[in-house]
C-alpha cells in the first residue's frame, strides 16, 4: 500500500477535499437553482393543474401563443419600459452627481455617505408603507405641493400617477447604491492622470470630460444594466402598493406581479412558468449584452 506514489495520493486527497469544499454549493445550487431552471423550461410547455387532482397536460406552444394576445402581459411590459425610461436615467445621473460631490476633498463626506445610504438598507416593505403614508391624499407630499401652489394628486388611486409614485420612491431608494458603486470606481482613477493633465494646463472641466467620464463608462454600463434588471424584477413595491392587484387600472402591474397572480390567484402554473421563461430570456439577453459591451470597454 505504501508504495503508491506520494503524488498520486496527494492528488486524490486534493480532489477529495476540493469536492468536499464544493459539496454544499453543488447540492444547494443543484436543487434550488439548476433543477428549477429545468423545471421551468419543461413545464412551460404544459398545462399544470395543482389544485385538487394534480395533473400535467402537454400543451405545446399554447402557453406562448397565449402571451401574444394577453393584454395584461403587454401592459406589464409597457409599464416596465416606461419605468426603465424614466427611472434608470434619473437614478444614474443622480448617482454620478452625488458620487462626484462626495469624491471632492470636502469635510464630513463620510457622514453624508452613511446618511445617503439609509434608504438602500431599509426594506422595500417598510419604504413602500412609509411612502404610501406620504402619498396619502391628505398626506405630506400633497401638503407640500399645495404649499408651493402646485397641483396635488391622488397618488394611490389615480392610474396616471400611481406608477410615478413608485418610480419616485425607487429613484430615491436606489440612487445611493449606485452612488457607492461610482464612488468605488472613482477611487480607482489614478491620481497621476490628473496631475499630468494639470501640468498640461487642463481646466477642471476638461479633466472631468477627458479623464473622469471615460473612466466611468464601464461602471455606467454596469449601473444601467443593473437598473434595468432590477426594474424587470420589480415586485414588492407594486404588490404592497396595490394590495396585490397591480391596480389602479393595471397602472402598477409588473411582470413578476403578473407571474405571481397567474400562479397563485388564477392557479395557472403552466402559463405562469411560460411567462417566467420569457422574463428569464429578456433578463439574460440584457445581461449578456452588458457582458459583451463591458468586456470590450475594459479592454480599451
Amino acid at each position: 500500500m505504501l508504495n503508491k506514489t506520494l503524488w498520486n495520493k496527494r492528488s486524490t486527497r486534493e480532489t477529495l477535499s476540493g469536492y468536499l469544499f464544493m459539496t454544499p454549493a453543488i447540492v444547494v445550487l443543484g436543487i434550488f437553482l439548476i433543477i428549477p431552471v429545468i423545471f421551468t423550461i419543461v413545464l412551460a410547455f404544459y398545462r399544470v393543474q395543482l389544485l385538487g387532482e394534480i395533473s400535467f397536460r402537454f400543451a405545446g406552444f399554447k402557453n406562448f401563443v397565449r402571451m401574444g394576445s394577453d393584454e395584461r402581459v403587454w401592459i406589464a411590459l409597457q409599464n416596465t419600459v416606461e419605468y426603465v425610461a424614466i427611472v434608470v436615467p434619473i437614478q444614474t445621473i443622480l448617482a454620478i452627481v452625488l458620487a462626484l460631490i462626495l469624491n471632492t476633498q470636502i469635510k464630513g463626506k463620510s457622514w453624508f455617505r452613511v446618511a445617503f445610504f439609509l434608504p438602500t438598507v431599509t426594506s422595500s416593505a417598510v419604504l413602500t408603507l412609509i411612502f404610501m403614508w406620504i402619498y396619502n391624499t391628505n398626506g405630506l407630499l400633497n401638503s407640500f405641493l399645495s404649499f408651493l401652489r402646485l397641483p396635488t394628486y391622488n397618488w394611490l388611486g389615480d392610474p396616471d400617477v400611481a406608477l410615478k409614485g413608485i418610480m419616485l420612491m425607487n429613484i430615491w431608494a436606489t440612487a445611493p447604491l449606485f452612488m457607492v458603486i461610482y464612488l468605488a470606481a472613482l477611487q480607482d482613477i489614478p491620481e497621476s492622470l490628473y496631475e499630468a493633465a494639470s501640468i498640461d494646463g487642463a481646466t477642471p472641466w476638461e479633466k472631468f470630460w477627458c479623464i473622469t467620464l471615460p473612466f466611468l463608462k464601464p461602471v455606467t454600463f454596469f449601473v444601467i444594466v443593473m437598473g434595468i434588471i432590477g426594474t424587470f424584477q420589480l415586485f414588492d413595491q407594486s404588490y404592497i402598493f396595490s394590495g396585490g392587484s397591480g391596480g389602479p387600472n393595471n397602472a402598477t402591474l409588473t411582470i413578476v406581479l403578473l407571474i405571481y397572480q397567474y400562479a397563485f390567484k388564477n392557479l395557472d402554473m403552466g402559463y405562469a412558468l411560460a411567462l417566467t421563461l420569457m422574463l428569464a430570456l429578456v433578463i439574460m439577453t440584457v445581461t449578456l449584452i452588458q457582458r459583451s459591451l463591458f468586456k470590450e470597454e475594459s479592454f480599451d
Partner: protein
Amino acid sequence: MKKLLSSLAFSALLLLTTACRSRDQNEGTIEITLSGWQSNPIESQLLEKVIDQFEAKYPNIKVKHEVINSQYMDVIKTRLIGDVAPDVFYLDAFEAPLLMKFEVLEPLNSYIKPEFNISDFEPTLINAFKRNEKIYGIPKDFSTLALFYDQTAFAKADIKQPPKTWNELIQYSKKLTRSEPDGKPNRYGFGITPELPRQQFIIQAFGGKLVDRNNYAAFATPESLKGLQLVIEQYRRDRSSAQPSDVGASSGDDMLGQGRVAMLLSGAWSIPYFKETFPNLKFATAEVPTINGRKGTMAYTVAYVMNRKSTHKEAAWKLIEYLTSEAVMKTSGNQGFALPSRRSVLAELQSDRTSLYAPLIAGAKYATTWQAGETLPTILTNFDNQFVSALIGQQSLKDAMQKAQDTANREIYLSN
C-alpha cells in the same frame, strides 16, 4: 474554528431533521386549524370566546384560530396547492364555485344530521355553496347593503327623509355637497365604492346581466350601461360623489365616519364599526333607493368550509356544526357585524322594525347574491380596472365596459 464548524454542522442537521411546524402535543388531543379574516378586532374576540366554549364542550379538540388579513384568498389558494391548508376556513360565496369545481372542499352532506336542521338556513345562502346537490359550506352569516346617512348633515341641508329613489339620491347628493371657499368640496353627498361587488345590482336594474349561461362576461349591453351611467354621471358631471381615495379615506365607512360624505351604501358590519370608531356620528339606515322603480341590493355571504385533505374531518365538522348552531348564532348575531344565516334567528331580529338593521333585513328578500361561476374573479379584476378608468374620465363608459368584457372573456377562453 473547528468548534464553529462542528456546531454549524450540528445546527444544520438539527434544522433539517426537526420540522418546525407545530405537531399535536398529546395523544388523544387533536388540534384543528380555523382560518378566517377579521373585519374588526371585536369580532375576533367574540369568535375566540365561542371557540373557548367549544373547547370546553369537546376537551379533546383544540382549535387554533388563525387570522389572515391581507389577500385572504391568495393565501388560502397558495396553501391549498401547497397541501398546508387549514382544516376549516371561511369562504366567500363569490370564490366558492372555483374551489367546489376543483373538489378541494369536503362535501358535508354525510355529516349533516337531522338535528342540525339545515332547512332552517336561508335557502339562497345554502345554494351559494351547493354544486351537483352536494353542500360544501355552511353559511356563517350574511349581509345586504343599505343606505347609511349622516343625520346631522341631512338636518343642516333641511332634508327630512332619506331618498326613496335613485333620482332623489342624486338630487339630495347635490344639496349635501359642501365646498370650501376655494371651490374644493370638503364633503360630498354620496360615497361610492367603484367595485363590481357593489355595482352588480345596478347592472341588473335596467335588465342587464353580469354573465351569460356559460359564465362569460355579458355586462357590456345598453341595459347594463344605463344603470352604471348613473354612477358615472353623478361622479363626473354633478361632482357630488366621491371614492375613498379622493378624500384620503381608506374605506367607504371612513368617508362617512370622518364626515367626508353624507350618504353611503354599506352593510351590517358598519353599524358596530361606526358606533365604536366614530361615537359622535349620528347616522341612520334606509333601504337602498329604487332604481328604475325596482328594489335592489347586494347580499354577501361567507361560509365555513372543510378542507378535503383535512386529517381530522370529524373534529372539523364538530367545529362547523357548533359555530353554526342556533344557540351560538343567537349570541354572536347580537353583536351585529352581520345578519344570522338561520331563519329562526333572523326572525327574532326582524320583529324590531325601528332597528338600524331593519332595512338590511328587508333587503334580503330582493338582494342579488354576490356570486357568478368560477370565472367571476377574472371578470371582477377586469371590470374594476376599466370601471375606475371610466369613472375618472379616461374613456367613455361604453368603451370601458366593452374592453373589460372582451378582455375578461378572452382570458376565460384562454385559460380553459
